[in-house]
């Protein structure tokens, strides 16, 4: 497969770019924050009108079945304007997990309404503040023909807005995923404001009773689907980080051409030129990493996991560097709240930690490569 976007993917990217930059530029994030909100319902409504929440949902469940490269290009453009929506958490990650793991009835019940944007779901996996399924302790005890769920999940972004929680649990038979309405008895949710003006939810489950039909797949049989979903989450959040890196880099290069000190544009200083050129090369290399990881998902290639972890690790590093250099090269104004560049660093910090950070994916990459 050629490592370029095909025509349809390019069209989608162009229209996502036009839509987001016109309707939800970075100033929309600032306005949201300043009015005390933590998400952008109008954006989600408009994305839903365009059918985007169905991007990876199979046609049989009223989705677009457009694939992960499509999801990636939308996320890249979202990264550029820092648009906030449950696109990644619900439409991409949750839809993937349900598609892979659910039975016919569950898919019928959930996927069409996820694809239309009416319903949002979120994966509740982390318990320690780090993505690591080995650390899951939330328990699903068999009871009354169903299960009683007890435990707690930490830092679930969009967790307090989602209609359905996809809760990773353990019991003697192994791990399983339960689709649980977030307003079920026994669930308590506390939220905390996080650095990019979103809220993350800490969710406690106290003997939450669910019927047997809430279990997606079988207890002990979720590992493969969770692994695939992790690859999806890693590759797609990489695409968002790539967008953040590109946008903050372009803004920085613009500033280098404009700001004057010592009687010259600061972009004439070779110390800054070389750092900008280095960063440009890193971003070019990162583009290839992201696209290949997305394509490998669509092709369900055997290299899928290596590429996904490679992309997540590489993007985490590069976006850190790009946003840090962006603030540094703006000088004092880069540190002010009034100026937008700091927003990129904040969102990048959240993306870097989501679905496994650099260290998690670096370790997974090496393990998969045999060392």
């Amino acid at each position: 497969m050629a490592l370029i976007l095909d025509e349809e993917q390019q069209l989608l990217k162009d229209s996502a770019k036009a839509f987001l930059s016109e309707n939800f530029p970075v100033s929309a994030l600032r306005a949201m924050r300043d009015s005390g909100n933590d998400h952008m319902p109008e954006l989600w409504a408009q994305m839903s009108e365009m059918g985007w929440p169905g991007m990876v949902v199979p046609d049989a469940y009223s989705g677009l079945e457009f694939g992960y490269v499509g999801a990636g290009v939308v996320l890249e453009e979202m990264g550029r304007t820092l648009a906030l929506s449950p696109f990644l958490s619900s439409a991409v990650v949750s839809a993937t997990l349900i598609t892979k793991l659910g039975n016919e009835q569950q898919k019928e019940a959930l996927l069409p309404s996820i694809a239309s944007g009416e319903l949002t779901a979120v994966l509740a996996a982390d318990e320690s503040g780090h993505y690591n399924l080995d650390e899951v302790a939330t328990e699903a005890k068999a009871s009354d023909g169903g299960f009683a769920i007890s435990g707690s999940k930490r830092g679930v972004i969009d967790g307090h807005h989602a209609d359905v929680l996809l809760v990773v649990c353990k019991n003697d038979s192994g791990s399983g995923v339960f689709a649980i309405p977030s307003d079920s008895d026994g669930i308590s949710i506390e939220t905390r404001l996080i650095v990019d003006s979103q809220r993350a939810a800490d969710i406690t489950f106290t003997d939450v009773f669910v019927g047997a039909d809430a279990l997606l797949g079988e207890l002990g049989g979720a590992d493969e689907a969770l692994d695939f979903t992790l690859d999806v989450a890693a590759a797609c959040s990489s695409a968002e980080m790539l967008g953040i890196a590109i946008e903050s880099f372009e803004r920085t290069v613009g500033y280098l051409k404009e700001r004057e000190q010592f009687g010259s544009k600061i972009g004439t200083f070779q110390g800054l030129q070389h750092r900008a050129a280095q960063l440009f090369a890193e971003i070019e290399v990162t583009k290839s990493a992201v696209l290949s990881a997305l394509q490998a998902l669509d092709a369900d290639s055997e290299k899928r996991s290596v590429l996904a972890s490679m992309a997540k690790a590489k993007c985490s590093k590069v976006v850190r560097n790009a946003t840090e250099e962006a603030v540094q090269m703006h000088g004092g104004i880069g540190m002010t709240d009034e100026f937008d560049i700091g927003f990129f660093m904040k969102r990048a910090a959240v993306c870097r930690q989501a679905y496994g950070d650099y260290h998690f994916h670096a370790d997974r990459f090496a393990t998969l490569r045999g060392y």
Partner: protein
Amino acid sequence: MENLDQFRAETREWLEANCPEDMRQPMRSDEDQCWGGRKWVFQSEGQQLWLERMATKGWTAPRWPAEYGGGGLSGGEAKVLKEEMSRIGARRPLNSFGLDMLGPALLLYATEEQKQQYIPDIINGRIRWCQGYSEPNSGSDLASLRTKAEDMGDHYLINGSKVWTSYADKADWIFCLVRTDFDCPKHEGISFMLFDMASEGVSTKPIKLISGSSPFCETFFDNVKVPKGNLVGTLNKGWEIAKYLLTHEREMIGGFGLAGGGLKPLGQLAASTRGTQDGRLRDTSLRAEAISFELDEMAFGLTIERITDETKAGQGTGASSSILKMYGTELNKLRMELMMAIGGTDSLNFESDRTGALVKSWLRSKANSIEGGTTEVQLNIIAKRILGLPA
């Protein structure tokens, strides 16, 4: 989309039948490369057969036009050929500055007669070329060069000297930048000429490198007569050709960033040499460095692929050669550093037999970020030409 399945099947079959066994072994060092030329002594029958067979098909230059003896392959076919060669670990049949540098420039700028004269001998490896660019006082600032060519009516007369001329003592011909006008801005008085290194007045003096070998020379021109027909392109307009050629050189050098065929990935090499614990490389600090390296290596390999595919689709990004050159050479230097760390004190052997190959390759790799334009010069090019930062 072209259907490449049949081409792949035929190529696989042909390679199986025609690639000699010893040409499928990983190269032990640079000395296993085949360079061709009038003075070349083949190291084995296999090496000679492999060059002849590949050259007959034009596959030493897969994408060059068939009318000059090239393979005439499409981008897709060339990619298949490359994949099929690496599948059996086939060595490159011919290493040559003619293939990697001069040929593409001739195809674009030379007259039909010149193409007929020079290109077939590049493809079949009969003529070995060297590159006369750098001078003692003109390195990064190449356009300041002062080797002079005077118009003597029926020929040019060349006087001056070049330095760091790789393999000047082994080469048959030179492609050379000369000044044909001294009274104008430095970029505007340069011409691109070709001449035989056996011409009267050409002499070379090998320079020893830190690795102990002498792959490059000082090259002196003392009243060398060059026929007028050996000028490529327009008089005084050689800088454009020179730069175009450099983009090909840079892509070639950047390709060093990819591990050669048949080599074990670095992390696995480290694991098998230094040992593991619970399936992880025991030396955790080395593991972290190997990971960081392999992430970049993989992403870089994909970038070469992406740029190739973009070019095929007519979406070329232009100045990508500087990115590949800069990134690939820094990567190769890091690979060699890590190989030395993995090898420990054994890797320090400097005897000229095969055991000293690693340390010499390590030393040699330090030139990667200097030759063909330094890393700093590539960063200048990216900053100015791609990012448009002010001068």
